[in-house]
């Protein structure tokens, strides 16, 4: 029994409206403007350049189906307030999960210990900047009927098992949340947002007597439950996951060494996230710890590459109306036709570096200090036909699905692990190969992108980025591209014209 599908937009037009104040924390906790001014004054009681209060109320649900049964169901609420004081380059931080006046004041005074100067007076009066409404969900999924969510998972379980008799294990999971935030700054910043997030995931294991394989597929976004009854159904993810698992049964050893690599569109955009994304976060560049420090205006990619970070895409997992410092998000051009243009900044970085604030200041929760983070990071579509890109490769690999990746931003080395890949021999896709990790050097890998396809895709909505112990949801995207040389971490010798096992 499914609710009538409600049509929804995948890529809508941006709507710029003055956000109606939700007044969530005002109503829920009896917070007043007077309180906010008192807390800010306490935070600046020992001086400091800036202070902010970050209130967060998070409701979440998660479900898991295994062995065709609903094995686990959980729901929870987490709420609190984090208080930050900035003094020059220094940050003082304290938080409380008890939103009584006494505890918030205690936190404010603790954060204030970073400074030691006469008290500062916060700006009086708060001003809400016009911000977007990128996820105007009518009924947040956390409030939707749980039986409908169970149905999604049971359907995916059925569809995965029906795909192929060799599918032996299926585990499907669903998680959603609604995060209400209120950000108040001593410069008059006032921002509220209500951020839905939902995703489902299906994992399969395929087995024969001699071999086994695994596959995983999932998606979602800042969407309502009807998203999963529309184009991206449980059957879609289930079949994709099962297909991958079965494919892995016949995968041969991957080659080892430098080769031509073609990346498929969508999630392989993890390449950009690791190779350049982190290296372009402003904090690393201010401290000159990034391999990209000092390279603004220099060539870091081929002319065919334009890479952006865009927090304003409707419904996307990585999007935000405002960042976690209350700054409206935007589309930031990082690399334009191969030239490095800019960094992703937050309030502190933009102040210390004299840059505009790009609205990339994010934090995992009220317990964490914000820092520059990505939102949706992707390369713009090019002119090449994806089929020509494959045809141009004499001996290489074609990788279409990945696990995750990692980067050392100081020496620039990054990795991402292919979970579904094939050999390309004489311009044709041939045998599937086992997953292998690809490794490269961020500041120059994109200079070897010789072809960029016209088929830009973003990922399905499963990305989570970790930095300094803080996880935030993100998106990635890329068209089909060819990288002339990348190191493939396989086990088989590569021989031009064929490969040994």
């Amino acid at each position, binding site marked *: 029994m499914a609710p009538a599908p409600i049509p929804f937009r995948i890529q809508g037009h941006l709507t710029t409206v003055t956000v109606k104040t939700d007044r969530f924390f005002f109503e829920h906790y009896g917070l007043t403007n007077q309180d906010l001014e008192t807390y800010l004054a306490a935070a600046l009681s020992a001086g400091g350049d800036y202070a902010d209060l970050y209130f967060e109320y998070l409701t979440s649900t*998660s479900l898991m189906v*295994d062995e065709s*049964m*609903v*094995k*686990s*169901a*959980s*729901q*929870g*609420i*987490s709420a609190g307030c984090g208080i930050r004081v900035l003094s020059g380059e*220094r*940050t003082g*931080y*304290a938080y*409380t*999960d008890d939103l009584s006046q006494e505890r918030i004041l205690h936190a404010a005074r*603790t954060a204030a*210990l*970073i400074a030691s100067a006469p008290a500062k007076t916060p700006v009086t009066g708060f001003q809400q900047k016009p911000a977007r409404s990128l996820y105007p969900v009518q009924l947040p999924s956390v409030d939707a009927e*749980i039986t409908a969510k*169970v149905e999604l998972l049971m359907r995916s379980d059925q569809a995965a098992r029906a795909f192929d008799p060799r599918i032996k*294990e299926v*585990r499907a999971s669903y998680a959603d949340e609604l995060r209400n935030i209120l950000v108040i700054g001593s410069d008059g910043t006032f921002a509220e947002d209500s951020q839905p997030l939902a995703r489902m995931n299906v994992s399969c*294991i395929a*087995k024969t007597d001699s*071999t*086994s*394989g695994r596959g995983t597929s999932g998606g979602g976004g800042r969407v309502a439950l009807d998203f999963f009854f529309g184009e991206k159904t449980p059957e879609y993810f289930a079949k994709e996951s099962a297909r991958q698992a079965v494919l892995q049964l016949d995968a041969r050893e*991957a080659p*080892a*060494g*430098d080769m031509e690599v073609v990346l498929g569109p969508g999630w392989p955009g993890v390449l950009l996230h690791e190779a350049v994304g982190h290296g372009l976060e402003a904090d690393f560049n201010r401290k*000159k*710890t990034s*391999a990209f420090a000092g390279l603004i205006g220099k060539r870091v990619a081929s002319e065919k590459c334009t890479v952006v970070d865009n927090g304003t895409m409707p419904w996307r997992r990585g999007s935000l109306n405002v960042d976690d410092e209350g700054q409206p998000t935007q589309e930031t051009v990082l690399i334009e036709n191969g030239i490095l243009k800019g960094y992703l900044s937050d309030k502190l970085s933009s102040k210390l570096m004299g840059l505009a604030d790009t609205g990339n200041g994010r934090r995992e929760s009220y*317990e964490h*200090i914000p820092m520059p983070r990505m939102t949706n990071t992707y390369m713009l579509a090019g002119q090449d036909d994806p089929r020509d890109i494959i045809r141009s490769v004499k001996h290489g690999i074609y990788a279409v699905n990945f*696990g995750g*990746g*990692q*980067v*050392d931003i*100081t*020496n620039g*080395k990054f*990795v*991402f*692990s292919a979970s579904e890949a094939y050999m390309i021999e004489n311009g044709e896709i041939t045998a599937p190969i*086992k*997953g*292998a*990790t690809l*490794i490269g050097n961020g500041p120059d890998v994109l200079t070897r992108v010789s072809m960029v396809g016209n088929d830009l895709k973003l990922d399905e909505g499963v990305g989570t980025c970790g930095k300094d112990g803080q996880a935030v949801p993100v998106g990635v995207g890329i068209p089909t591209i060819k990288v002339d040389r990348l*190191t493939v*971490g*396989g*086990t088989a*010798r590569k021989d031009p014209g064929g490969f040994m096992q």
Partner: protein
Amino acid sequence: MTTTLETQSTTDLKEVAQDVVRRAMQGGTTAAECVVREGDEFSTVVRLGQVETLKESGSKAIGVRVFFGKRAASTYSSDFSAAGIDRMLTSALELAKITSEDPFAGLPEPGSFGSLAGNLDLYHEDVYSLPGSERIDYARRAEKAALDSDPRLKNSDGGSFDAATGRKILANSQGFVGEYRRSYCSVAAVPIAQDEQGNMQRDYWYSVARTLSKLESPEQVGKEAARRTIRRLGARKVKTAQVPVVLDPLVAASIIEHIFEGVNGDSVYRGASFLAGKLGQKIAGDNVTVIDDGTMIGGFGTAPFDGEGIPTRRTVVVENGVLRSYLLNTYTAKKLGLQTTANASRGLAGTPGIGLGNYFLQPGPRTPQQIIGDIKEGLYVTEFLGHGANLVTGDYSRGASGLWIVNGELAYPVEEITVAGNLKDMFFNVSEIGSDLEFRGSVASPTIRLDGLTVGGE
């Protein structure tokens, strides 16, 4: 620095937990379990001699797991008010209606609960004994010692000092109530070296302990961080080759942890690991013995009881290459017709998972220098990048940095290479195990040598 938050006493929180269990049962559940977590933390980063961040706070949260026969559900909250706890209980009772009847679900049997007696040496108040300025000074001293070591170390990601304490309470409808506290402190340095061409390298070192008295000095930590960073300068790529690979202890620990990933009950009953079904069989070479011990005094993975309230124990997982035991909780044990090994891990939400105690590979007779000394040409790995282990198939592929071994010596640094193989073979090809076992966390391994791997490069 007056930062101690008043926290509810242990008695109060134990009463809260027991009360939640009582009320759940009154609400019609057949079994219930409540977890309360409380903790506080302090951390500071000093960079180039100046305080960069200073963070201090405390928090607590509560979770309840309820059973209606063979249906279970769980809810959690950070709100300890009467209304908050009401809401948490009501949601749990409602949620349990939609889960399936799982014949294996349930709390452990009565009589299995308990808490290890004696002082496990897990909690020391002295982690917070230093005045604030001295805590900051630890961080500053670690960084300074690193940067002073070599003129090529001009930049830094900072020196840091962290301290934390935590308390955990578990109560269930079988009458078990247990609690324990743990403390933790650490000091670290992350220096950055730059060569004449402007290429940068970064590495780190740290010390972690449950008491300040066992923490290595900031100067020791800083100097070791500097040594590790400097030796990376001038790193080059190498040609693809099949050579012996030696893993330094922290890196080796990640390989040994894959055994855990493969033999924990969840992976086993689902057949989601190539080690599933191999109990009693040889899965590694004769020299490989792996132990999980939740009882080690002061250990980072030690606790008096596991996430279900069962006293922890020492389990021989692999003995001379033979898989002697899976690591299980009550649910997975029932699935497999076995007994729990008291490895249940309980977060606030969801069903208990499976966690490690103090988990390690038993050391061997040779020193790391002797192991490296034997190798004509090979790779010494100091860092892996990425997570490329497939436990279903055993396929293994990760990015790596390290030092190339030439004629028994660590000759030059290497980077932008990969190491690949299959875990099914790797555990049989641990040709050397070092004598240098040391716990810098709850998972530990000595230096090991692996043969049969492919190094991917040019």
